[in-house]
């Protein structure tokens, strides 16, 4: 196993957040960076809701017509539909219309600058079961009026894919972190990969520093953190965020301010952490039943850990 002293890292902006790649062999950093950047370019071109040249844009504006898509887009949509199925519809990719009506209709950095009142109330999710994905062609048909938003799972999928590609190309251990969605692959450092688990109230906007509430080590799989405080904005005096309750179309009201989950993949961790925000107190038993190690933080700072997540 490589020593922690030989690690190298690079961070750069991507997907409206940041991307970090850590490799256990400094000589592999340049290649790792290039592979990660290529993966992010590909996932952005496929799944961006804001780019008129993206596949998602074409699908969302096809007015119910069948649209041929790339294998990457088909995979991203399949993962999103799996997420809905695994969570009984709590993590629903058809919440795009709600996000648009809530003002999240452009890149987040631009969207949060608009603070005027909402023109129309949000609407419930269009229904993920109505989306038709033909994986054999592949092609997609979305009923008129439904807008897909793959942001919840596409970023995690990119972390999974990039980590696997980097490990395959370099033969070295790697950690990919996309805005808090983490995936590791290959041989970890001696003591594992050190990951800080941050509560967003600790974020110092003046210095852009994050003080992690806890530092853990992971050796395999993925880790993701979800929070209603992350992508939050204000319209007409109302505080809004990006985790949508599909049944109402409004941002979810949760007893948790932050949920971090470890899973076999980053996609799995992301799905579980997002669903946990939506499920509130029920999330404790649900995560424990799935044996997914998790750390849940209430708004008053009380921490609950389940399924072997270390206390602290």
């Amino acid at each position, binding site marked *: 196993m490589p020593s922690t002293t030989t690690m190298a890292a690079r961070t750069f902006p991507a997907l409206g957040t940041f991307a970090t790649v850590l490799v256990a062999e400094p000589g592999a950093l340049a290649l790792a960076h290039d592979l990660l950047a290529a993966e992010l370019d590909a996932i952005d071109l496929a799944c961006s809701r804001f780019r008129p040249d993206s596949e998602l844009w074409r699908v969302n504006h096809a007015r119910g017509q069948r649209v041929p898509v790339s294998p990457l887009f088909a995979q991203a949509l399949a993962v999103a539909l799996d997420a809905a199925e695994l969570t009984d519809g709590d993590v629903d990719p058809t919440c795009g219309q709600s996000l648009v009506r809530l003002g999240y209709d452009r890149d987040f950095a631009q969207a949060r600058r608009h603070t005027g009142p909402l023109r129309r109330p949000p609407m419930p999710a269009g229904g993920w079961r109505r989306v038709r994905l033909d994986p054999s062609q592949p092609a997609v048909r979305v009923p008129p009026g439904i807008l897909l938003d793959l942001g919840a799972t596409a970023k995690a999928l990119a972390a999974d894919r990039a980590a696997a590609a980097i490990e395959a190309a370099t033969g070295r251990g790697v950690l990919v972190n996309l805005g808090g969605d983490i995936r590791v692959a290959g041989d970890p450092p001696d003591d594992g990969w050190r990951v800080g688990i941050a509560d967003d109230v600790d974020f110092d906007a003046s210095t852009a520093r994050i003080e992690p509430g806890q530092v853990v080590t*992971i050796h395999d799989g993925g880790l993701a953190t979800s929070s209603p405080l992350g992508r939050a904005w204000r319209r007409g005096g109302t505080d809004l965020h990006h985790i949508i309750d599909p049944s109402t179309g409004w941002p979810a009201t949760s007893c948790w301010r932050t949920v971090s989950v470890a899973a076999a993949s980053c996609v799995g961790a992301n799905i579980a952490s997002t669903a946990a925000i939506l499920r509130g107190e029920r999330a404790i038993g649900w995560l424990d039943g799935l044996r997914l190690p998790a750390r849940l933080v209430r708004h008053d700072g009380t921490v609950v850990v389940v399924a072997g997540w270390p206390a602290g």
Partner: protein
Amino acid sequence: MRDRPEFPEEQPGAARAAGLRRLSRLTWRAAQLSAVTAVGFATLFARTAPAQTVAGDSTAAAAKTSPPAATPPSSPGKAHPGRARATVSASPQATARPAPQAAAQPTAKASQTAAAAAPSKSATLAPPSTAPAPAPSTSSAPAPTPTVSSTSHGGG
């Protein structure tokens, strides 16, 4: 003594007509039986064909799953039909248990063909092989700055 009742067949030419009627009825029943059998086969085929298609997709998805899911044998939680269940059940075969060469070749060919035709559908809620552990003390040696899982920078 009562007269014997008269039967049409006993009249001249009636036997031939009766035989033709019996042959006609027999032909009609044979046609009915054939139709019922055809409908039965069609129904059976319609029910069986989709199941075979789904099984093929699931196998392909499982074969293309890159990270081993490390799912415990008695994973609790919601039973998930279709894609995820197939992935969970097939992962140990694809990743952990080495197959004999003769058996492995067709499987590899099948997975390559399916992978080209269908993208992976492998989202599962499987736990990691090892749970996160407390970070070791860093008092004796400098430790690298940890990367952070948070949504503060606009992430998930």
